C-alpha cells in the first residue's frame, strides 16, 4: 500500500510538473478586412505535429506546448497564409488573435502549403459549401443555399420545383435546420421552390449528411447549420442584386465595439403577374415573398462577445381560382437568438444561446361562400449551452444542454365551425458529452452520449455516438462512425408544395422514431490542390410515424389513430472529387444509393392478404452524378457549369383498370387503377446542364459590379416529373408531366 501511494504521488508530481512546464496559445482568427470570424480556419506550429482548427465561433486553443520558439502558421482557403514567430515560456498562456488577409486571386497561381496546414479537419459525413459558390453556380432564377446543397453527393432533390433536401435516403423532416443555432421549421419560400436563406447574409453552411456528433440531436438523418455574417467590423459596406424573380440588398458596418448586419430580399414578380393576367385567367391576383436577416455583435472584451440575430420571412398569395372561389395563403418563419460567447480560460470555451422560433401558416379557401381556414402556429423557445474543454492536447471534451418549450397550435374551421384542432405543448431537453481523444498521432477516438427527453409521452432516450479516425499517412484519413438517433417530430408535407406544412409530435401511444447509422469513409489528398473523399453508409429507421394519408378526416379520432407507423432503411456510397487550384476548379460527386420504406396496409399483395412490403419512395435514385465546374477566363470573366445525370425516380405503373358504376353517393363512375408493387417502375433518366457567365466590372466608380447571365437546362431536356393516367380516356392515356424547360436568367449585383 505504501509503495502504491508513493507511486501515485510520483505520477501526480510528474503530471503537475508537466502541466506547469507546458504552455498554450488561444484566440480568434478573423478576416482583417471585415473582422468576420473564420470557422474551421487551420492553425499549426510549423515543423511540429501540433495543430487545430477554429470552432463555429472562430475560436481556437492549442495546449500542452513545451516551452520554446515556434512559427505559428494560420491558413484558410481564400486567404493569405499567416506566419508569426512566438516564444513560449513554461506555463505561459499566450492570447494570440490572428487576422488573415483575403487573397486576391491571380490566374495560374498554385498555393503551396505544408502537409498539416492544408488538411481540412472535417468530421465524417460532413460537407461544407462556400457562400461564394452558392452565388456562382447557375440556379433557377436566383442563388439559393438549398439548391447548392443539392449538388453534393448524397443530397437529392425531389424535382426541379423543390429545394427540399433528401439526404442519404431521408425525407426533408429528417434534417435538423439551424440558423444561428435556432431551429427553422419551414425553410422555404415560394412553396418550396427556394430556401429562406439569403446568400448575401450567410457566412457558413455546413451539412452533417450522416453520423453527426453528440452535440446535435432530434432528427434521424442529418443536421444543417447555417451561420449568418456578423458584419464588417472595419468599415461600412453593402451589396444590391437585381434579379428576374427577386432582388436583394445587404448592408453591414462597424459599431464602436462590434458590428451589425442587415439583409433584405423581396420578390419582384408583380410586373410579370400583371402582364400575364391580361391574357390568362389562372394567375394569382397577388404574390410576394419577403425576408429580412439581421445581426448585432458587441465585443465587450477579449473574452466576452454578445450577439443578437433575427430572421423574419413571409410568403403571401392571393389567387382567385375560379368564379366565386379563391385561395389565400400566408406563411413564414421568425427566429430570434442571442448568444453569449465566453472564454473562461485557454482551456474552457462556452457558447450560451437563448432562442425563439415561430412558424406560422394560415391557408384559407373560400369556394361558393364556403370558407375553410386553418391557423397553424409553432412556437419554440429554448436555451442551450455548448462548452468546449481542452484539458490537454489529447482530449477535446464537449458538453452541453439544450432545453425548451415547443407549442404546436393547429385549428381548422370549415364553413364557420371548428373542426379538427390540436394543441400540443411539450417540454424538451437534451444533454450531451463527447470526448475527441487523440489516442496517438494516428488514431482519434470520439465517443459520445446524448440523452433526450420529451414531455409528451414522457420519453427518455439515450443516443450513443462513436467515431474513429486513423491516419495511415499524412494525406489519408480513414474514418468510421456509429450513432443512434431519435426524432420526436414528424412533418406533413407535399413534395410539390410546402405551403401547407404541418408538424406533429410524439405523444402517448405515438413513440418517437429512431434509427442507427453506420458510416465508413476515406478522405484523401491525392495531389496538391485536390481532394478525394469516399463514404459508405447504412441507416435503419424504426417507428417512422406519419399522418395516415388515407384518412379523409381526422375529427373525432384519438391522436394515436391519425398516424401510421412504419420502418425503413437506406444504404449507399458517395465519391467526391474536388480540384481547388488553377483556372479550372470544381468538383464531381457520384452517389450510389438505395432507400426503402414499409407501412402497414400499404403495398400489400392485392388478393393474397400478405404482409406489407418494402418499397422505394419516389425520390429514390440509384445512381446520381453531378459535375460542378468554374473556369476563370480572365480577371473579369468566368464561367460555371453544372451537369447532373441521375437514373430515374421510382413510380407506380398501373397494370389494370376497372370501375364502379353504382356508387350511391356519386353521380359519376368511379374509375380504379389496379397496381402491383408500389413504385416498382422507373422514370427515364434525368439529366440537365446549366451554364452561367459572370462579368465583373465597376459601377461609375462607386463599387464593384457583376453581371450574371445563366441558362438553366441549356439543351432543354424535358425531364419527367411523374406520369398521369387519364382514365377519362378509354383506353387510359398516359401523360407525362414535365419539369423545367430551358430558362435564361439575368442578374446584376453591385458591391459598395
Amino acid at each position, binding site marked *: 500500500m505504501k509503495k502504491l501511494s508513493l507511486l501515485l504521488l510520483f505520477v501526480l508530481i510528474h503530471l503537475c510538473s508537466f502541466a506547469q512546464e507546458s504552455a498554450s496559445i488561444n484566440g480568434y482568427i478573423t478576416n482583417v478586412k471585415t473582422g468576420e470570424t473564420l470557422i474551421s480556419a487551420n492553425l499549426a506550429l510549423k515543423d511540429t505535429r501540433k495543430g487545430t482548427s477554429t470552432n463555429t465561433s472562430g475560436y481556437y486553443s492549442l495546449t500542452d506546448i513545451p516551452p520554446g520558439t515556434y512559427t505559428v502558421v494560420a491558413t484558410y482557403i481564400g486567404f493569405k497564409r499567416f506566419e508569426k514567430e512566438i516564444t513560449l515560456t513554461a506555463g505561459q498562456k499566450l492570447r494570440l488573435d490572428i487576422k488573415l488577409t483575403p487573397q486576391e486571386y491571380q490566374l495560374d497561381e498554385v498555393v503551396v502549403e505544408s502537409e498539416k496546414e492544408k488538411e481540412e479537419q472535417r468530421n465524417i459525413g460532413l460537407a461544407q459549401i462556400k457562400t461564394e459558390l452558392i452565388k456562382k453556380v447557375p440556379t433557377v432564377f436566383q442563388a439559393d443555399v438549398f439548391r447548392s446543397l443539392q449538388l453534393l453527393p448524397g443530397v437529392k432533390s425531389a424535382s426541379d420545383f423543390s429545394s427540399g433536401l433528401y439526404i442519404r435516403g431521408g425525407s426533408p423532416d429528417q434534417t435538423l435546420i439551424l440558423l444561428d443555432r435556432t431551429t427553422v421549421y419551414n425553410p422555404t419560400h415560394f412553396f418550396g421552390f427556394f430556401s429562406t436563406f439569403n446568400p448575401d447574409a450567410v457566412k457558413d453552411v455546413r451539412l452533417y449528411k450522416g453520423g453527426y456528433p453528440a452535440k446535435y440531436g432530434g432528427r434521424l438523418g442529418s443536421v444543417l447549420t447555417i451561420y449568418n455574417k456578423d458584419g464588417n467590423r472595419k468599415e461600412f459596406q453593402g451589396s444590391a442584386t437585381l434579379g428576374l424573380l427577386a432582388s436583394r440588398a445587404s448592408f453591414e458596418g462597424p459599431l464602436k465595439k462590434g458590428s451589425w448586419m442587415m439583409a433584405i430580399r423581396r420578390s419582384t414578380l408583380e410586373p410579370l403577374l400583371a402582364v400575364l393576367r391580361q391574357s390568362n385567367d389562372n394567375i394569382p391576383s397577388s404574390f410576394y415573398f419577403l425576408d429580412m436577416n439581421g445581426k448585432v455583435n458587441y465585443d465587450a472584451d477579449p473574452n466576452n462577445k454578445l450577439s443578437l440575430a433575427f430572421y423574419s420571412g413571409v410568403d403571401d398569395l392571393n389567387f382567385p381560382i375560379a368564379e366565386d372561389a379563391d385561395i389565400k395563403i400566408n406563411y413564414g418563419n421568425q427566429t430570434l437568438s442571442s448568444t453569449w460567447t465566453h472564454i473562461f480560460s485557454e482551456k474552457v470555451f462556452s457558447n450560451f444561446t437563448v432562442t425563439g422560433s415561430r412558424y406560422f401558416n394560415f391557408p384559407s379557401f373560400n369556394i361558393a361562400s364556403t370558407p375553410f381556414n386553418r391557423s397553424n402556429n409553432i412556437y419554440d423557445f429554448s436555451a442551450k449551452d455548448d462548452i468546449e474543454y481542452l484539458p490537454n492536447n489529447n482530449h477535446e471534451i464537449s458538453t452541453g444542454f439544450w432545453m425548451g418549450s415547443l407549442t404546436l397550435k393547429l385549428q381548422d374551421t370549415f364553413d364557420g365551425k371548428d373542426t379538427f384542432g390540436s394543441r400540443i405543448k411539450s417540454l424538451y431537453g437534451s444533454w450531451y458529452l463527447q470526448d475527441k481523444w487523440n489516442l496517438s498521432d494516428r488514431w482519434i477516438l470520439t465517443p459520445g452520449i446524448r440523452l433526450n427527453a420529451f414531455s409528451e409521452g414522457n420519453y427518455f432516450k439515450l443516443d450513443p455516438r462513436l467515431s474513429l479516425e486513423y491516419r495511415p499517412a499524412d494525406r489519408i484519413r480513414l474514418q468510421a462512425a456509429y450513432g443512434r438517433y431519435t426524432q420526436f417530430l414528424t412533418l406533413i408535407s407535399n413534395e410539390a408544395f410546402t405551403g401547407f406544412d404541418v408538424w406533429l409530435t410524439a405523444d402517448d401511444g405515438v413513440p418517437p422514431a429512431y434509427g442507427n447509422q453506420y458510416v465508413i469513409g476515406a478522405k484523401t489528398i491525392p495531389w496538391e490542390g485536390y481532394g478525394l473523399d469516399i463514404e459508405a453508409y447504412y441507416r435503419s429507421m424504426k417507428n417512422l410515424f406519419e399522418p395516415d394519408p388515407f384518412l379523409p378526416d*381526422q375529427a373525432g379520432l384519438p391522436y394515436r389513430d391519425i398516424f401510421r407507423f412504419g420502418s425503413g432503411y437506406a444504404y449507399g456510397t458517395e465519391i467526391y472529387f474536388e480540384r481547388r487550384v488553377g483556372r479550372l476548379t470544381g468538383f464531381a460527386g457520384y452517389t450510389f444509393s438505395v432507400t426503402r420504406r414499409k407501412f402497414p396496409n400499404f403495398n400489400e399483395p392485392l388478393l393474397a392478404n400478405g404482409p406489407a412490403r418494402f418499397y422505394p419512395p419516389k425520390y429514390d435514385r440509384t445512381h446520381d452524378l453531378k459535375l460542378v465546374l468554374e473556369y476563370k477566363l480572365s480577371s473579369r470573366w468566368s464561367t460555371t457549369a453544372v451537369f447532373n445525370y441521375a437514373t430515374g425516380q421510382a*413510380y407506380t405503373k398501373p397494370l389494370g383498370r376497372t370501375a364502379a358504376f353504382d356508387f350511391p353517393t356519386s353521380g359519376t363512375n368511379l374509375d380504379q387503377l*389496379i397496381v402491383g408493387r408500389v413504385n416498382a417502375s422507373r422514370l427515364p433518366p434525368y439529366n440537365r446542364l446549366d451554364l452561367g457567365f459572370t462579368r465583373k466590372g465597376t459601377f461609375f466608380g462607386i463599387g464593384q459590379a457583376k453581371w450574371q447571365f445563366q441558362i438553366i437546362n441549356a439543351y432543354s431536356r424535358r425531364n419527367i416529373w411523374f406520369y398521369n393516367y387519364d382514365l377519362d380516356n378509354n383506353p387510359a392515356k398516359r401523360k407525362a408531366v414535365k419539369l423545367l424547360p430551358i430558362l435564361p436568367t439575368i442578374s446584376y449585383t453591385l458591391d459598395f
Partner: protein
Amino acid sequence: MKRILILFVFASLLFTACNLYRQDSYQEDYVVESYLVANAGLPKVRLSKTVPIQKKYNFQQTAVSKASIEIRKLNADSSVAETYPYAQSSPGIYTSVVAAKVQAQQLYQLHITTADDHQITATTYVPGDFKTVNKLQDRYIYQSDNQIKITTTPSEYITNRQTYYIFTVNALRPKTENLTPFYKDLVENNDNAIENYYVNSSGIINEGNYDRNADGTITLDLPWLAIAFYDSNAVTANAIDDNMYDFLRSQNVQTGGSTLSPGEIQNIRYNINGGIGVFGSMASDTNRVVISRPSN
C-alpha cells in the same frame, strides 16, 4: 487508392445489376359491386373482370355470366339466418329473385361461385337508421345567412365508432341556366361536364366534426358549396359502412390530393375475399328543398 475506387464502382454496378424489386405483371381479377341501403329492397350485384391498363374498358365486354350469387343475412355468430338467391338479369348484372327489405344494424354476406368454381365473399354491417327531426324550410336563398340545417338522430354502428357521413345533393332540375356561379364557371370555362354535378357529394365527413345536442341528436350544416343548381334539390345525409369508407377514401387518394408523392399509387382497399370491388351498405335520410337565386 485507385484500387479502392475501382472496387467501390464495381460493387455499385454489381448491386444495381441485382434488382430485387421488380415490376410485377398484370393479373386478371373478378370485380363485384353491390350496395345495401337500409329499408330499401335488395340491391343488384354486378360481376365483371378487370382489363389490362392498355386495353379499352367496357363493362359489357368484361361482364361475368353464369355465376351463382347469394346474399345471406347473418346472425351475430356469423351463422346464416336467411339466404336470398340471385339470378342473372343481363350480362354481369344479377338481381334478387325474392323481395326483401334491407334491415339496419344487420350483418349481410355476399357469396359468389363463378362458373369455374372460383369463390368470392364479402361481409357488410348495415349502419343504424336515422331520421331528420327538424322541419326544413321549403325554400332557401343561395348563400344567405340562413343555411340549411339538418338535425338527425344518431346512426349506430357495430363497433361503436363515430359515424362516417357523406352528404349528397341531387339536382332535380339540372339545367345549364340553373347552375350556381362557381359550378357555372367549372362547366363553361373549364370544360367540365355538367353531368358531373347532377349529384354533388361532400366526401367523407366524420361525426366528430359536430357536437351532439342535449337530446342526443346531431345538427349538420349543409355548406353552400354543395349546391350546384338552383331550384329543387334532394339533400341526402348518408351514414356509410366500413367497406364504403375504405373504398372511397383509398379511391380518392388514387386520384390525387394526399401527401403521397405524385406517381406513387396504391391499390384501393377492397375488403373482398377472392376478388376486388365493393360490397357496402349505408343508411340514408333525404329532404327536399328549393334553392332560390339571391335577389342581387
